[in-house]
């Protein structure tokens, strides 16, 4: 065949041509730009306008960011350095204030020798939350998660180690009673005993016992009063405590609202509607001001604890409604199937209903948590020195009066990191639990 071809055709390629680059306009960045940014006159117009807008914003902000003064002791020093380096009409940020005061923004007035304690508490928290968040980790780590609230409390506030241990043993006591009595005398007796006995123990025995043990074996850390907490430590403690406590409470409220038991149903509805119907700031003022009138003078009922309780109740009401949405979205057949299997109420909830309802509710739950975390900045109005409150205090010193954006940029960045991670985790969880209903 090749011979015939050789005579009749002037040229025949004997080998493959090497693969060639596609035409410049049909590949790579240029193709992408043509298709996505300049595909028609409307797109061209929008692209040009957007670029102009971005340029406008950046041209005003970037010089300010780039001409940052990092080493100065006061705002006037910042301005002198700027005048000497770039001239007096150049916009320039004075992030020296962050360099000077970042420990305060992060830890408030926590004694600087003990900064490792809030940091370690955060590490403990991350280690404790990891097995809850990621199911790939060994399940035994959950025991550590259960112990971690007491460990974190001990690390943050210090004092004798026996306080948290004695309180924790109340839970152990309750659990032991529940397990023991449920088998011997029925579930109801077990539940009642598991609630009553620890409460009596905490009220009557725990205090003297902790003091006694503390006197015999004085192990502990230096006590740090709540007044010394501030900055992001405060925001994190209020936020995380609120998040952790409000989820179980919210689930119970949601189930209560669905319940057929008249009293439980009405109490849940009333609680949710009252708490949700009043702004958080009002609850905070109630906690900080109104309560003071009812408590006898000199009562030391920690303001931070009051705020945590209020924030928890507030967010629990929202969580309850989010989860109720999840419960309502489940097909009726799921409830009926659970009943048909002969599961009792708690088992059907725990094994069938809640896993599905919670999965549906994840975006709403995380949304509420992010909102709760950011709402912690409202405590500035009741005089707690959270990052916003501290930024006011920092500006009140003669060194830094007149600064504004630098502090808020820093605070905003830290809040963004925390909230963005929460958002990303919720996306991860949704992908992981995706079982293909659509």
């Amino acid at each position: 065949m090749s011979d015939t071809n050789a005579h009749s055709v002037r040229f025949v390629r004997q080998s493959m041509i090497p693969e060639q680059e596609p035409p410049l306009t049909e590949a790579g960045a240029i193709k992408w730009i043509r298709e996505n940014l300049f595909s028609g006159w409307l797109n061209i117009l929008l692209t040009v306008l957007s670029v102009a807008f971005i340029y406008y914003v950046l041209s005003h902000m970037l010089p300010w960011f780039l001409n940052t003064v990092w080493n100065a002791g006061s705002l006037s020093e910042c301005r002198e350095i700027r005048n000497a380096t770039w001239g007096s009409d150049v916009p320039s940020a004075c992030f020296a204030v962050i360099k000077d005061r970042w420990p305060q923004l992060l830890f408030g007035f926590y004694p600087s020798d003990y900064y490792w304690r809030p940091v370690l508490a955060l590490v403990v928290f991350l280690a404790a939350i990891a097995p809850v968040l990621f199911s790939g980790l060994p399940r035994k780590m959950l025991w550590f998660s259960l112990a971690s609230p007491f460990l974190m409390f001990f690390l943050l506030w210090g004092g004798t180690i026996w306080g948290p241990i004695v309180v924790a043993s109340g839970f152990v006591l309750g659990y032991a009673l529940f397990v023991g009595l449920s088998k011997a005398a029925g579930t109801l007796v077990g539940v009642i005993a598991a609630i009553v006995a620890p409460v009596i123990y905490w009220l009557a025995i725990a205090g003297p016992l902790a003091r006694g043990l503390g006197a015999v074996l004085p192990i502990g850390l230096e006590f740090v009063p709540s007044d010394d907490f501030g900055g992001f430590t405060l925001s994190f403690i209020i936020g995380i405590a609120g998040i952790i406590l409000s989820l179980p409470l919210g689930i119970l409220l949601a189930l209560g609202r669905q319940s057929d038991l008249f009293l439980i149903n009405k109490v849940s509805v009333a609680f949710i509607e009252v708490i949700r119907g009043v702004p958080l700031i009002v609850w905070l003022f109630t906690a900080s001001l109104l309560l003071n009138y009812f408590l006898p003078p000199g009562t030391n009922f920690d303001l931070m604890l009051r705020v945590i309780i209020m924030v928890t109740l507030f967010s629990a009401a929202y969580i309850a409604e989010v989860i109720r949405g999840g419960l309502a979205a489940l097909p009726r057949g799921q409830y009926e199937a659970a009943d048909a299997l002969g599961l009792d109420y708690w088992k059907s909830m725990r094994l069938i209903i809640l896993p599905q309802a919670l999965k549906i509710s994840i975006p709403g739950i995380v949304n509420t948590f992010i909102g709760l975390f950011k709402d912690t900045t409202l405590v500035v109005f009741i005089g707690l020195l959270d990052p916003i409150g501290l930024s006011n205090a920092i500006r009140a010193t003669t060194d830094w009066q007149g600064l504004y954006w630098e502090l808020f940029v820093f605070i905003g960045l830290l809040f963004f990191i925390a909230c963005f991670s929460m958002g990303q985790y919720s996306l991860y969880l949704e992908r992981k639990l995706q079982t293909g209903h659509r």
Partner: protein
Amino acid sequence: MKKSVILGALTIAGLSAGVAGAATLDDVKTRGTLICGVNTGLTGFAAPDANGVWAGFDVDMCRAVAVAVLGDATAVEFVPLTGQTRFTALASGQIDMLSRNTTWTFSRDVDLKFEFVGVNYYDGQGFIAPKALGVSSAKELDGATICIQTGTTTELNLADFFRVNNMSYEPVPIETNAEALQQYNAGACDAYTTDASGLAASRATFETPSDHVILPEIISKEPLGPLVRHGDSEWGDVVRWSLNAMIAAEEYGVTSANVAELAKGTDNPEINRLLGTEGNLGEMLGLDADWAERIIATVGNYSESFERNVGENTPIGLARGLNAQWTEGGLLYAPPFR
């Protein structure tokens, strides 16, 4: 344990609600610390430094009382309070005294049931405006937009001033001083009004202070001073005479530098009684004899505290003005120590 504290507190609240803790002095002595309400941050008057140590003119007042009662100027627990929370905190007994640039007014004294023990700073409300606005008097501000802090007496003063002068204005209510300054500098309002001390302090931090003018009118009387609850006169006396000791010490020339020397005894009986070498004034107050000596040695006299925090050598640069001794044309006049 936490839970037991709450429940215990609630029980006690039920049992003893309404039983006012009258003996604040004893409470403070038992507790070993003074709980003092201060501003969450006001330049020169109260602000925490990088180590969290509070300093300022109002803070010195707290320290003076602490050192007089407890002998330790650091034995103070500062409770930062906002304009909204300060009175409830005092009325409910959360704090022992309030030293938070609070104006002494009739209704606060009588209706809110507080006892203003004296005046540690005579202030007045003024205006600041850019020079470019071309205004030389507050009476030319007809129709202007004015930035104002909410929840303070300044709001009412401003309304009164404009009504009396038959002028109109548009208020721009703002929560904090820092935001108000930011708004003012951004041109959101023609003028900013607050206490004159605050205006001077703020102007000093502007890029070009000379572009702004503090208008000559002072439209209100703002006697700022420490206050305590009604119904505990012994405690009120302690705070009142701690303040008077500082003022009197300046008048008699007692300073932190020479107080140790003078405490050995002088030929001025007034100084002797003040410093406890003569008479038993301290005992009458329920304190020891050298309570005032300790105040002056640690905190200083009025002038020293003033110059250290807000005086002309600080960036705030306030002149004494009305806050000079009566002998120098001011209003400070401590009653005699006898």
